[in-house]
């Protein structure tokens, strides 16, 4: 009996350098539009799928009906980045002059090597690779994004958290002069997000520096952001200036703003509705009909074990 598994995107797609560069040329030729001939790997990452990385440019890849790459224009003009305004078009309109150089990342807290880094030095040891992930917003829309990044785990191993560290917390820049949305009290600034240390160590959790093979645009969280694909999008922290290790669960911004609606874990879960709207379905940007939302955004095989025995309704 053939058990049909949901079409999945292999977690970390290690693109051979030649294929990556070829595709970059291809994308450049297309003007960075979302018609990349990247083929998303089918299957759940067991037999054979591991090698099914992105097909190089020359193949006119028949993209599977599910999980087509979202066009670059949508990814870069439909954004929730309240620091630049609360309309979806605000970040792309208001972040054009955002200054991302020089940029400092502070690593502190319960860690053996606390330091302030120039972001270039912070990023130097790590090779950014393309990872095509589903991105699911808590507002019940989603995209498929070819992020360029590397596992947060690589950084954690390098900075050596102390045995007492249980959580890692990320903070966004606070600069109301450059970020007009921070002059309003819609959220308590600066934006803070956090993960349990084992969540942050998971290979799927990324530090991201680019998108579609190009440098991350300002409205997407330049110069450095996190992406946690099995959680709602607000768990990703954009324009990161601080990474702090702590032993107590940090208070995160959306959870602080509306505790009954936004939890600490924020795992994508079709069985736990947002109090005001359903989470069982989502609108994939570019598609007409809504789709069924997948448990852990389709990454259940890889991450469900992190939550074994937990009540996912209480710990939402």
């Amino acid at each position: 009996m053939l058990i049909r598994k949901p079409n999945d995107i292999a977690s970390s797609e290690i693109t051979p350098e030649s294929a990556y560069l070829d595709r970059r040329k291809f994308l450049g030729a297309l003007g960075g539009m979302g018609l990349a001939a990247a083929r998303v790997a089918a299957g759940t990452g067991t037999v054979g799928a591991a090698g099914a990385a992105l097909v190089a440019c020359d193949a006119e890849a028949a993209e599977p009906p599910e999980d087509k790459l979202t066009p670059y224009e949508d990814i870069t003009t439909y954004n929730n980045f309240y620091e630049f305004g609360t309309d979806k078009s605000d970040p792309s309109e208001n972040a054009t002059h955002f200054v991302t150089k020089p940029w400092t990342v502070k690593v502190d807290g319960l860690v053996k090597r606390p330091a302030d880094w120039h972001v270039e030095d912070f990023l130097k040891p790590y090779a950014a690779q393309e990872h095509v992930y589903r991105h699911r917003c808590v507002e019940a829309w989603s995209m498929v994004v070819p992020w360029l990044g590397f596992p947060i785990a690589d950084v954690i191993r390098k900075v050596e958290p102390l045995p007492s560290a249980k959580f890692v917390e990320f903070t966004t820049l606070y600069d109301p002069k450059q970020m007009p949305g921070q002059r309003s009290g819609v959220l308590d600034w600066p934006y803070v997000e956090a993960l349990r240390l084992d969540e942050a160590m998971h290979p799927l959790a990324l530090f991201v520096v680019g998108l579609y093979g190009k440098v991350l645009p300002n409205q997407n969280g330049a110069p450095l952001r996190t992406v946690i694909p099995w959680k709602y999008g607000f768990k990703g922290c954009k324009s990161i200036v601080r990474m702090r290790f702590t032993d107590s669960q940090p208070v995160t911004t959306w959870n602080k703003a509306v505790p009954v609606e936004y939890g600490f874990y924020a795992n994508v879960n079709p069985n736990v509705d947002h109090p005001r709207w359903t989470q069982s379905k989502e609108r994939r940007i570019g598609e007409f009909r809504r789709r069924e939302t997948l448990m852990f955004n389709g990454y259940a095989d890889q991450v469900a074990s992190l939550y074994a025995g937990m009540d996912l309704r209480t710990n939402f």
Partner: protein
Amino acid sequence: MHEAPARWWGARLRDRIPSVRAPRWLAPAVFTASLVPFAYVVYALYSDIIGTTRFLGSNPITEAEHFTGEWTLRFLIFTLAITPLRQLTRWGWLIRYRRTFGLFTFFYAMVHWSTYLGVDMVFDLHDILHDLAKHPYIMVGMGAFLLLVPLAATSTKSSIRSLGGKRWNRLHQLVWATVTLGLIHFAWGVKKDIEDPLLFGAIFGGLAAWRGWTWVSERRARTVASVPAAVERERGQRVGAPQLGTGD
């Protein structure tokens, strides 16, 4: 019509406003202009869904819902602004536009509702019932819409005649319930930024305050007036046919 008191602050302004007749092109122009947002959203949504345009952005169905919802509220404002405008200008011919805008409010509410049911939920009864049952802001929106149905149904002159002016007016006070439920529906549907619902709320609040004030002044004027005058007025109200424009 509830009168603003004879010596209110705007009286001098009002006395300066000339008595103007409506130009003949006004009614067709208002009707056509009122259809423009509808024509735009239909074209834009169709083009975005079938083609590759982004008139309504990356998430056109949600944007179309916001667009039609906001225009419902705007037409509600236009409708409720007619009477204050009439009191200010004493232009009696404005009254017909109260019905025009009232019916367009209902029209845009229908379009908003249809976008949700047909385009967003693709008539999936299970999903719709789930939304209605578990998500109060949908129920509140439905309520606001349903309250407009009797108002639309009794918008004709013959309805006013058969109901009688007083009863018709009381029925149409339901519009304020629609305003309230509509604002709650709006505020409950936004993620966090309630700026827009608050702005609309402030405008409706102003219109309601005006109504409240003219109603109170009218009552005061009535109690002060002499008995014979009151009797005369009462007789006139009972005997005369309810006119368009009395007792709003």
